[in-house]
């Protein structure tokens, strides 16, 4: 059982690694989006492995179902050329600077993670969906209401932004 978990963990890690490489490096934005979807599915698998099935479901529902469709709309509405807006590769200097930034941040955080291990329980805790729902309605009700307000405002703002110019000039 333990070995099986390790194998599955490695499999999901490979999916995440490959997917994020495609998402960051692909010349065509549609391909980058497919890489993003692979990464999101890999993370959903990780949630499943962490015994958080509800989170895995929400990950697929919200990210793959909603956010990726939004990104696809963005790609279509901006009439990205088929060759991809990223067709010409970035200048070497920019790549080097980006790599430096990533390695410095990643190095510091990785060093912190590796040298200061937390006390773990080993086995993931199980939280039932009932508990999550009661938490949303009880102690964390305010955050729940606030996030619905944020979603409403962002939706109204998006409509307003996309509308204004058509009416105006």
């Amino acid at each position, binding site marked *: 059982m333990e070995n099986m978990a390790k194998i599955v963990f490695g499999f999901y890690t490979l999916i995440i690694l490959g997917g994020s490489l495609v998402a960051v490096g692909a010349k065509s934005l549609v391909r980058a989006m497919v890489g993003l979807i692979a*990464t999101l599915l890999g993370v959903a698998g990780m949630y499943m492995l962490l015994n958080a099935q509800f989170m895995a479901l929400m990950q697929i529902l*919200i990210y793959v179902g909603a956010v990726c469709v939004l990104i696809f709309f963005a790609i279509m509405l901006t009439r990205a050329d088929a060759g991809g807006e990223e067709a010409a590769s970035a200048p070497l200097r920019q790549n080097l600077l980006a790599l430096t930034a990533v390695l410095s941040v990643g190095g510091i955080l990785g060093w912190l993670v590796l040298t200061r291990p937390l006390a773990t329980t080993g086995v993931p805790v199980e939280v039932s969906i009932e508990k999550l729902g009661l938490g949303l309605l009880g102690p964390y009700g305010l955050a729940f209401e606030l996030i619905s307000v944020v979603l409403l405002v962002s939706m109204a703002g998006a409509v307003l932004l996309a509308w204004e110019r058509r009416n105006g000039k």
Partner: protein
Amino acid sequence: MSALTLYQLVALILLMAGLFGISQRRSLVGMLISVELMLNGAGLSIVAASQLTPANAMLGQLGTLFVMGLAAAEATLVLAIIVVIARRFGTTKTSVISTLKG
């Protein structure tokens, strides 16, 4: 190496990929994709830390749920901004969008 460390390293990979993408991509949609990668890394880190330690597991899962909600709201607004910019400039390349109006 404990399981939690492995999960944190995977989250770190996601963060690094997103950071590299956002500093190297030259179109707004590519940057949006990179931001989503970073937010996913944050979510994975939160859930792993709450599930594998004696911390409050429910709080961790709900926190990640809120991160997802905020990511959805952010993607909606960024989509609208991208659409407006594409109408005004005809492109979403960041090198072209350099006009400020006070």
